[in-house]
């Protein structure tokens, strides 16, 4: 059984087992996956609420004091009003606040571009499976060509053509990732389109767009969700890598990758915290997402069902 079968059941009043409830209860069976989800939720909350809960606005140059630069974790600012729990960078920016604001950028660029890639990839994958023939082989030829090159190389190529900017990083990630979605969706859709409900929809002479997105797509969702979770983690890692290489977000509003890069030169003199803590934040985010994705794969994979 798949996650969302055709039409929804007619609003059950009592606790009838619906696909969604079954999915939730199966997901809750794994402690590690729940832990991953909890940690990820906390990270998202920290990022969302950063302007209200962060000790400092790291982008507001007026509150930064260069005299507070490179203070060790737990140190106190020059005027004694603030404790820097995770230290400060060379600008005197509180690392804790920097990480919270950096998470905002890393998460929004990562999740945003993964979502965009999902829309593009899923649409093209559906189209390839439904249209078949030349359309199918043309789309899949491009997918194969692209997947034979590693993500970092494709991203570098695009940034080399378009130049450095946040928008171009998003474009690069979308171009890198759409192929994974397209291939996954096409694989499932090829099976699903032979089912009776698609034939029924065709007999009703529904418009193709409606059949694609209202009938075929909901039934291709489970593998799409799994691949989507993993790709969000990959997108965040890729954005961090590109920013670290100095090809991503501007230096005035650093993401986690850029925060780590900024600490690079001070690390050789033993000032580890500028690079260390943003890296931990990045690592925890990626591991949390991967734990959730790993378990989702088990829950949503019909082949593993008893």
């Amino acid at each position: 059984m798949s996650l969302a079968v055709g039409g929804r059941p007619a609003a059950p009043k009592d606790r009838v087992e619906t696909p969604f409830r079954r999915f939730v209860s199966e997901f809750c069976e794994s402690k590690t996956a729940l832990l991953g989800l909890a940690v990820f939720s906390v990270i998202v909350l920290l990022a969302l609420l950063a302007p209200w809960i962060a000790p400092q606005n790291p982008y507001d140059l007026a509150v930064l004091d260069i005299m507070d630069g490179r203070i060790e974790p737990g140190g106190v600012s020059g005027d004694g009003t603030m404790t820097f729990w995770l230290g400060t960078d060379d600008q005197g920016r509180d690392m804790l606040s920097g990480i919270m604001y950096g998470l905002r950028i890393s998460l929004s660029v990562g999740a945003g571009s993964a979502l965009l890639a999902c829309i593009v990839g899923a649409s093209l994958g559906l189209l390839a499976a439904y249209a078949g023939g030349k359309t199918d082989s043309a789309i899949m030829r491009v997918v194969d060509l692209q997947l034979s090159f590693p993500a970092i190389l494709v991203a570098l190529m695009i940034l080399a053509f378009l130049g450095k900017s946040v928008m171009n990083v998003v474009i690069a990630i979308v171009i890198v990732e759409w192929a994974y979605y397209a291939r996954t969706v096409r694989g499932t859709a090829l099976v699903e389109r032979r089912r009776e409900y698609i034939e029924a929809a065709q007999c009703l002479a529904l418009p193709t767009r409606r059949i694609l997105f209202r009938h075929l797509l909901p039934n291709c969702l489970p593998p799409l969700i799994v691949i989507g979770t993993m790709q969000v983690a990959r997108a965040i890692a890729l954005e961090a890598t590109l920013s670290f290489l100095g090809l991503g977000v501007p230096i005035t509003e650093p993401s986690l990758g850029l925060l780590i890069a900024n600490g690079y030169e001070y690390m050789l003199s033993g000032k580890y915290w500028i690079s260390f803590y943003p890296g931990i934040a990045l690592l925890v985010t990626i591991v949390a997402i991967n734990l959730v994705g790993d378990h989702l794969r088990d829950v949503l994979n019909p082949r593993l069902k008893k």
Partner: protein
Amino acid sequence: MSVYLLRRLIQAVGVVFAMSLIVFIGVFAIGDPVEILISPDADQIERERAVRALGLDLPLWQQYLIFLGKAVQGDLGRSFVFNEPALSLILQKMPATLELALVATIGAIIIGLPLGLYAGLRPNSAGSKVIMAGSILGFSLPTFWVGLMLIMLFAVQLGWLPSTGRGETVEVLGTHWSFLTWNGLSHLLMPALNLALFKISLVIRLTRAGVRETMLMDYVKFARAKGLSPFRVTFVHVFKNILIPVVTVTGLEFGSTIAFSVVTESIFAWPGMGKLIIDSINVLDRPVIVAYLMVIVLMFITINLIVDLTYSVLDPRVRLEGK
């Protein structure tokens, strides 16, 4: 076999042309070619002369043919920064990158195989749980951050290894190699480990899965029933069969190791072509970027071709399908 070979070769040539077209469109059509190919310091007269010399006043398809013709002759423009032919600049840096990637790949096999073998033979022991958890971490850890932490630990805190550079090199066969001197080797160790980390995790998982699958096979049971020692069963019967997928995948991954060395080289200031391309993107040295992309695309297609051919030699099913 020869039909299969020929078909794969034609495919590879097709991909080379497709990629050259993409690079051409990227640099000449999306970007402004005048800005990309002519030094920003040039004045108006120099600019016009260069436009004519480069054929930028011609229609686009003609420009592509000229670009292709020059590329075939190895002329991919001159670097603005170094004022040297871009291609020879890349080729000078290539041995350093190849050395790093090769050492990382071999290291991944040397470290990953025994660990994976152990985890596969004793799947429930505490040791293999640690190994598997480690391999998950190896997949999740951002490579560049691990590189920084390695420098932090081994170069700054412990002072055992030098943090950056390539160290002393020895000239063999016309190029410089680091791994032949102690000093060079100590410079090579950290970047190679950093680059190998992902690959180690991959080899561990592949080996473990292979061992667990192979141990259930009838011929293994038969070998045991014959009374062969566990050592012989493991290292002769099982090992040979898991080696094929492990070696193929590592071979396939060699290309992405070279691509990923962009990150590692930037961290450890390793003077290879990955560092060159990042520096070139940062100073907009576009001829070098074009040359790098063409060289790496060519390298990739060659690697993919070699892996496909090796696979068809190792696994007869691939060959038969081609007939």
